[in-house]
């Protein structure tokens, strides 16, 4: 299925999904409500069968007061890829876990929790991943400050 047909089929499944502009891969933007069900459809529907979660990460849109969760999906059956973006609130963030759909998400979500401080609902083992358990702050947030950060000439 080519990119256009894929996006059309997805909007058919989830009317709230919008095509995400300015990317080089097929990408959609969906609301956080019903995210888990939507991703489950993407995984299980034979038209999509996205059985491979390549990557999951987040972007801190500090100016807009949002975090964006990004999922990179890949189908080993059809060979198509899809980027799914989800905006959530920056204050009191909470995201549904998809580790029951793709086991690797358990650790990818832990990385996001570790570096962005986004807790995942129902995550089986939500722990700091790279940083120590008592580390304060979440380094990949845009407002994170550290006295050892290099001030380099721009």
């Amino acid at each position: 299925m080519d990119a256009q047909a894929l996006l059309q089929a997805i909007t058919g499944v989830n009317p709230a999904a919008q095509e995400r502009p300015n990317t080089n891969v097929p990408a959609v933007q969906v609301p956080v409500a019903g995210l888990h069900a939507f991703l489950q459809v993407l995984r299980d529907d034979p038209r999509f069968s996205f059985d491979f979660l390549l990557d999951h990460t987040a972007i801190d849109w500090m100016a807009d007061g949002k975090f964006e969760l990004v999922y990179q999906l890949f189908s080993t059956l059809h060979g198509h890829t899809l980027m799914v973006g989800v905006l959530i609130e920056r204050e009191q963030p909470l995201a549904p876990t998809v580790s029951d759909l793709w086991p690797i998400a358990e650790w990818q979500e832990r990385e996001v929790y570790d570096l962005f401080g986004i807790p995942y609902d129902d995550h089986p083992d939500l722990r700091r991943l790279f940083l120590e358990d008592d580390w304060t702050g979440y380094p990949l947030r845009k407002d994170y400050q550290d006295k050892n950060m290099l001030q380099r000439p721009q």
Partner: protein
Amino acid sequence: MGRVDFNDVKHETRTFAGVTVPVSVVPRFKRQAYPTRFLFSLKSLVDGMRLTFGYLVRPSTVVTRQYPENRATLKFPERYRASLKFKFDENGYQSCNGCGSCERACPNGSIILETRKGATGKNEIERYIWRMDSCVLCNACVEACSFGSLEMSHDFENAVYDRRLLVYTLNRYAGPTANVLLKEENLEAREAMMTKIDAYGGQVPMNGYALPTVAALGTPREKAATDGKGEAS
């Protein structure tokens, strides 16, 4: 021929993710009767031992290079990057005019430029500080320099006992470029334009802290850049 026949790589084509992929399926273990397996197992051990023995009895296969005894005969490829150097022409003049493109290209702030207004009113280099302790020798500065003032040298033995000694001043004098200097015919006037900076010719301490043998540096820019890091010792 042991339990695994290494030539038994099966070449097939498979369809994966909508693409036809030629694959080589790697060999696996054959079923063998116990005595055959036992003998082949012994043979595999003997084969390995024969191979290592072959190397033992052929001293010509030794590849050890005895550094530092072979220092005199060490050869480096032309492009080998070991440390950053200023290029000087035959008069000992530099071609750096302090434009700062290397400083901007440096990914980790290892180059700190101090410029001043020269006699001709142009910007000229006062101090070119290279912090080897944070440099990764990525060659970005050499690439970025449009005047060819920098090069990567082969001096790789840079170990020192104090990390602060890894901060170098690369220029030998504060002053204008070779072009400007050569326009001035009068040698004495040329000399007047240049301030020798022997004191900073070699290593300088980092962050302005003095060392027993090296004077304090303390450029304002550097102080600002490393403020609050507590490198004092």
